[in-house]
């Protein structure tokens, strides 16, 4: 049995037929097993026919693989009409011989059983259909019609034969089947004879219906094991893959400006990393949306395509409001650089939002996305599930090197009261917190960067003001009373200025006083000097006088002596005369 062992070798390296359905090929590791039959089971209205039809349409359009659709339930005309409402040009593809549709009618009431039979008619018609367009893909929708219309005991071995036959024909086949409850087929049998079973489900929780897809088994291939939400809209099916692609991320070192110069300077002077995730959180009215719009405005200016998802306001409301702070984003919407997606979170639940956004991403290819705010989405579902979904969504964006900014009404206080909020922290690279600072019955905004991976960010708290010309950050004022902002800061500054003025005046006063005193002192000195000098002069005069006196004294002495002599002589004379 050489060929058989050979087959097992092949199966370990299973070839895949890509479906072209958004998200589906990611979770199936490339698509459906090539040249093998796959069962898709699901309850009524879970989208079996659409997913199989999209498999054929995409196969014909994208992978040049013609496909055959054998319908047991709808006629060719009904199918074409139904698919037209989904933007699938089935009639056109049929005309181009890329798709062949055949309606197989089994009317139980018409058939009278009289003996044993087989499904050879189906085989012949299948064969005929496959060869007529050289089909590589085959869909049988659905098997239940056979079970319903014919004797089950007769059919079972024939179904087994059908699967074998399909494998032999080298076509990638999908056989649909109704499922009873959950993820198993009604008859159970098919699960054993198919290599690949995919289950669709359609369930309603809190009055919102979500479609989910699960790969029950896929022999010889790795595949995602979760339940993946999917949606059906005008363009067909989109599956939201929850698979993490952390390993494949190629990181960018390109930086993008936040649109606020001062904020850039807090972020290493350069701004955010391209392809990073940014969370702007804070309580209501702290300017989260303004910050987000600032970033979008800055990137749009550089012709970088952006997507703004608004969950609180309509896009016209945002454009109007932002004009008041000098940010005109309307021009970018008109020029096609910016796309707005606004929707109330209550209309759809998170997965459908994410699918819708993912779709826009694939078509519009934005480089930056804003989700404003994400808390509204979170309120829509069970916390852990939502968080996981968000985390995967962020991973998906990172894989595409798309920068994402989301706003959230999370503060450090709510993180403390609701620790699961911190889970968000794990998936963001940069977390900017806008905080209310309330003093003197006035509210001001303080902004700081809680974390920013891979850069030397500022740890300062700055005051965040919204002006007519956009946003600005002011240095925070620290006084003896603590951090001051707003009017308190103004008041404080005024006070200081007053004080300064007073001191200046005092200095002025004291300086002139000193000047006056100096003059006085100098005058005094001069007075004293003159006094002193006059005294010196007096002394000198006295000295001269005394000299003169001394001189005269000397001369007097002589004179006296002379005189005495004279007198003596005269007296003697007189004596003599008297005598």
């Amino acid at each position: 049995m050489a060929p058989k062992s050979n087959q097992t070798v092949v199966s370990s390296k299973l070839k895949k037929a890509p479906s072209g359905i958004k998200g589906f090929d990611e979770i199936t590791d490339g698509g459906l097993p090539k040249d093998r039959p796959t069962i898709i089971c699901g309850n009524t209205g879970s989208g079996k026919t659409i997913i199989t039809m999209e498999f054929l349409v995409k196969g014909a359009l994208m992978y040049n693989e013609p496909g055959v659709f054998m319908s047991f339930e709808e006629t060719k005309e009904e199918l074409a009409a139904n698919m037209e409402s989904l933007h699938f040009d089935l009639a056109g593809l049929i005309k181009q011989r890329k798709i062949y549709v055949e309606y197989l009618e089994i009317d139980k009431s018409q058939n009278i059983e009289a003996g044993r039979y087989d499904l050879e008619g189906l085989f012949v018609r299948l064969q005929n259909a496959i060869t007529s367009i050289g089909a590589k893909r085959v869909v049988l929708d659905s098997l239940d019609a056979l079970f319903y219309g014919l004797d089950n005991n007769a059919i079972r071995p024939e179904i087994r034969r059908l699967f074998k036959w399909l494998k032999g024909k080298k076509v990638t086949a999908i056989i649909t089947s109704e499922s009873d409850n959950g993820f198993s087929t009604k008859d159970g049998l098919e699960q054993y004879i198919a290599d690949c079973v995919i289950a669709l489900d359609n369930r309603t929780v809190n009055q919102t219906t979500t479609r989910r897809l699960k790969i029950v088994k896929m022999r010889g291939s790795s595949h995602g094991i979760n339940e993946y939400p999917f949606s059906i809209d005008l363009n067909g099916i989109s599956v939201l893959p929850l698979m993490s692609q952390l390993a494949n991320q190629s990181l960018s070192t390109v930086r993008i400006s936040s649109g606020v110069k001062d904020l850039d300077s807090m972020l290493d002077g350069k701004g955010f990393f391209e392809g990073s995730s940014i969370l702007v959180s804070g309580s209501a009215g702290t300017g989260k949306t303004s910050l987000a719009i600032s970033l979008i405005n800055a990137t749009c200016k550089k012709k970088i395509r952006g997507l703004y998802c608004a969950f609180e306001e309509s896009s016209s409301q945002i454009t109007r409001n932002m004009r008041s702070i000098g940010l005109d984003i309307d021009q970018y919407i008109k020029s096609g650089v910016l796309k707005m997606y606004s929707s109330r979170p209550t209309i759809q639940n998170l997965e459908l939002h994410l699918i819708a956004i993912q779709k826009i991403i694939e078509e519009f290819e934005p480089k930056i996305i804003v989700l404003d705010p994400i808390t509204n989405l979170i309120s829509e579902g069970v916390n852990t599930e939502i968080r996981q979904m968000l985390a995967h969504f962020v991973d998906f964006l990172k894989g595409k090197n798309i920068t994402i900014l989301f706003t959230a009404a999370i503060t450090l206080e709510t993180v403390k009261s609701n620790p699961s909020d911190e889970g968000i922290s794990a998936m963001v690279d940069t977390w900017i917190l806008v905080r209310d600072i309330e003093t003197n019955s006035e509210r001001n905004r303080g902004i700081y960067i809680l974390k920013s991976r891979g850069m030397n960010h500022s740890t300062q708290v700055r005051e965040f003001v919204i002006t007519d010309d956009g946003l600005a950050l002011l240095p925070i004022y620290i006084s003896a009373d603590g951090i001051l902002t707003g009017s308190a800061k103004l008041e404080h500054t005024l006070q200081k200025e007053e004080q300064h003025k007073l001191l200046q005046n005092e200095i002025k006063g004291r300086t002139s006083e000193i000047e006056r005193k100096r003059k006085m002192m100098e005058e005094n000195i001069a007075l004293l000097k003159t006094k002193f000098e006059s005294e010196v002069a007096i002394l000198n005069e006295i000295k001269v006088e005394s000299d003169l006196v001394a001189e005269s004294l000397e001369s007097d002495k002589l004179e006296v002596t002379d005189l005495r002599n004279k007198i003596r002589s005269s007296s003697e004379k007189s004596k003599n005369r008297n005598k």
Partner: protein
Amino acid sequence: MSELKRKLPDKFPRKPASAGGPEYILRLFVSGILQNSVRAVRNINLICEGYLKGSYKLEIIDIYQRPDLATSEQIIVVPVMIIKSPLPERRIIGDLSNVQKVLEVLNCL
């Protein structure tokens, strides 16, 4: 012939051939030499010769030869015999080994 006779009821009203063409128009779709089909061909021949002699027209079509007819006649299981006439159109699926049932449908009982 003896084999068939054993299966058939003894009382058996033979329908005479009518003047204007065959009363029974039968179309048997088979697939080549598959067991069920071979049996069906043998059975229908016996039934026709035994009960409808002279008043039937039988067409045996191999769907492998005429896949177009398989499609247009909505053939899914084989063998299948379509009773085109008398109306209404009916289908008997299987190898026709349940002769009683076949005769019932053909209104020969």
